[in-house]
């Protein structure tokens, strides 16, 4: 590459930094941390893209965003064109530009990353989507002629929203049934405002409504109606995108003491119910001074950073492996550390201690060392004998994962699930063991990322279309 002077010249422009709220300032508010590129910075960054003929970045994208094409438009100053190019394959670009693990997807395959730093694809995606929305230039595409077929989507999270958008654009009548009082799934209950402002999710949901998608809130399928009843009501196919919502606890003594939350509850109270604005909003949350979050994923980082913003003096991550094995995005770990989160690595809780009123006061922990890799490929933690110690806390958030929610599978005869309760599908189509029933997202894969759930929605949309239009 060095022999080609043109490309070498482009390499000289460094990857553009994302302006951010300063750590000391941001831990006192819930406003978004990264502030977004200015148009000038976006153009500068977009011009770094060398427009590869065989772009690896697209292969790294679960929803096949035409990455070089949208970036080219930004480089030319055609920001709206970029946004619309994005939306051809990605219904939620403002969301993905914020929460996708780009370093493991598109950016990982960027040729510039081989010798230097990859193009900031995620930041550019966010910029284009924000530009279109902030300048009120979102255009709802013309609706196709209805094809007379009805689809029920269960769950208004990333996967459900994506498939709804894709199918409605093909002429289907799409209704989403959402159990909560707000659409968005994990985007509204799980991911904090400082990482994904709720106004953005609302804008994306409104866009879908504009496309003609019907969203029925407060409707828990499995209780208000079963999958069988949806077919009786005349739906031609059902897509199950109910997520892996059930929280996992470690089943150690004292885990039900007051002050101990699942990450789902902690984040739902704070994000969906706006407990951080209590008592203006009615839902309370414990504002601990010494808060420990158990786990090392993105959800753990979201929880611990929430704890800081709720006023914790000490906010700890307790993780049983080392930082190398942490599943959280590097950027999130970095943000947490900048904000003063204390990492208690190679540490595993074995018991919660409480006071006479039933409140948690401490966590008895063991130090760990790393042994051989386990099934997940990460090195297994092994307890160090006699290493017990206590961390004083008044609040704990357990963020060690989730499992399948049982409500839909248990009320849908003939729907096969695996030993962990996840719905079994045939390949990438999302086809389940029940005719006309498709599934995707976390209820199939277990907890994964927003973009993978969206990818599953896209593939299932194609499969359902093929099934209902007799192409199969």
């Amino acid at each position, binding site marked *: 590459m060095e022999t080609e002077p043109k490309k070498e010249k482009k390499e000289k422009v460094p990857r553009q930094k994302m302006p951010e709220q300063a750590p000391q300032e941001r831990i006192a508010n819930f406003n978004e941390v990264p502030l977004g590129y200015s148009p000038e910075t976006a153009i500068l960054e977009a011009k770094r893209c060398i427009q590869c003929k065989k772009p690896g970045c697209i292969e790294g994208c679960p929803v096949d965003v035409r990455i070089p094409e949208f970036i080219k438009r930004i480089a030319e100053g055609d920001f709206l064109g970029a946004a619309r190019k994005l939306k051809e394959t990605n219904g939620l670009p403002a969301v993905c530009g914020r929460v996708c693990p780009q370093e493991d997807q598109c950016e990982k395959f960027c040729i510039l990353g081989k010798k230097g730093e990859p193009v900031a694809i995620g930041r550019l995606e966010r910029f284009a989507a924000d530009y279109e929305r902030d300048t009120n230039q979102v255009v709802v595409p013309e609706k196709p002629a209805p094809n007379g077929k009805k689809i029920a989507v269960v769950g208004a999270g990333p996967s459900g929203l994506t498939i709804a958008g894709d199918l409605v654009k093909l002429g289907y009548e799409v209704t989403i049934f959402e159990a909560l009082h707000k659409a968005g799934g994990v985007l509204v209950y799980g991911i904090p405002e400082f990482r994904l402002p709720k106004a953005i999710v609302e804008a994306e949901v409104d866009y879908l409504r504009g496309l003609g998608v019907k969203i029925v809130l407060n409707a828990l399928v499995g209780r208000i109606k079963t999958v069988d009843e949806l077919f009786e009501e005349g739906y031609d196919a059902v897509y199950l995108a109910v997520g892996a*919502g059930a929280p996992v606890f470690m089943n150690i003594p004292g885990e*039900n003491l*007051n002050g101990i939350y699942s990450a789902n509850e902690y984040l739902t109270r704070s994000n969906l*119910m706006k407990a951080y604005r209590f*008592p203006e909003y*009615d*839902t*309370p949350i414990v504002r601990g001074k010494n808060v420990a979050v158990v786990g090392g994923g993105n959800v753990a980082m979201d929880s611990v950073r929430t704890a800081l913003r709720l006023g914790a003096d000490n906010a700890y991550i307790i993780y049983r492996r080392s930082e190398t094995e942490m599943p959280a995005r590097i950027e999130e770990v970095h943000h947490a550390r900048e904000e003063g989160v204390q990492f208690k690595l190679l540490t595993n809780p074995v018991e919660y201690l409480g006071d006479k009123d039933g409140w948690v006061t401490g966590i008895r922990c063991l130090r760990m060392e790393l042994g051989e890799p386990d099934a997940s490929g990460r090195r297994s933690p092994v307890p160090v004998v006699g290493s017990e110690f206590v961390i004083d806390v008044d609040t704990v958030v357990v963020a060690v994962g989730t499992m399948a929610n049982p409500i839909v599978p248990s009320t849908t005869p003939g729907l096969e699930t695996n030993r962990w309760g996840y719905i079994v599908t045939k390949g990438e189509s999302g086809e389940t063991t029940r005719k006309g029933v498709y599934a995707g997202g976390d209820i199939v894969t277990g907890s994964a990322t927003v973009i993978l759930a969206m990818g599953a929605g896209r593939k299932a949309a194609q499969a359902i279309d093929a099934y209902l239009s007799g192409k199969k």
Partner: protein
Amino acid sequence: MYAVVAAKQLSEAVFRMDILAPEIARKRKAGQFVILKIDEKGERIPLTIVDSDPVRGTITIIYQVVGKTTAAMSALKEGDAFQDVQGPLGNPTEIEVFGHAVCVGGGVGVGVIYPITKALKEKGNRVTSIIGARTKDLIILESEMRAASDELVVCTDDGSYGFNGFVSAVLQQIIDRGEKIDHVFAIGPVPMMRVIANLTRPYAIPTTVSLNPIMVDATGMCGACRVEVGGKTKFTCVDGPEFDGHQVNFDLLASRLRMYCEEEKQSYEKHRCGWNGN
């Protein structure tokens, strides 16, 4: 929006409300509940569905004013509306032919036990009911419970009406006179359910209780409503709300119900100040 179709004060702090929610009204079964959210800033609170009218499309709830949300609800009139009503939630009561069933209800718990009593009676059980409250004015649903039971005993702690004493004393009398009891349903304040469960345990009378822990999403997602039953953690919203009373850890339930005492006070005070125009 879910319109309030009728609102009525039953006693000093207990209110009854019919809310328009046609799909829930058609679908709900005894033992199930709804989550209500009054407005954008409101908290999600669970309340049992006491009754429903599938023709009119209404569900009935009964609640006691204990905090900000219930106080705000008590101010709602016919024509006002809830922003959100989610349901029916939880597993329906398993209504079997037990033979002789005894339904014990305390305070607003009578509202919860009433649909179960009715369903047990309709199924062909002989039903004895015991309902109680602190004082006469706090007794609710007496005529409805009488209609749904073969026999009804009303108790008041202060003796102002009916039997002078606790519901447990009446249950003990029934047991003492040698009457066979095949199943007990006990719903009311935690101390009452604990006493009843402790009373029936030595006689090995199967005893079902309905638990009312703090909940948030009520779909099995958040784990706020976890309780300990038979030494295992259960989520009341998906595993319950009814459990074997002999297996429930009532101490833990009582403790977890106190988790937000301070915040509830703060919220209620702020709300009351709002009423006074402050």
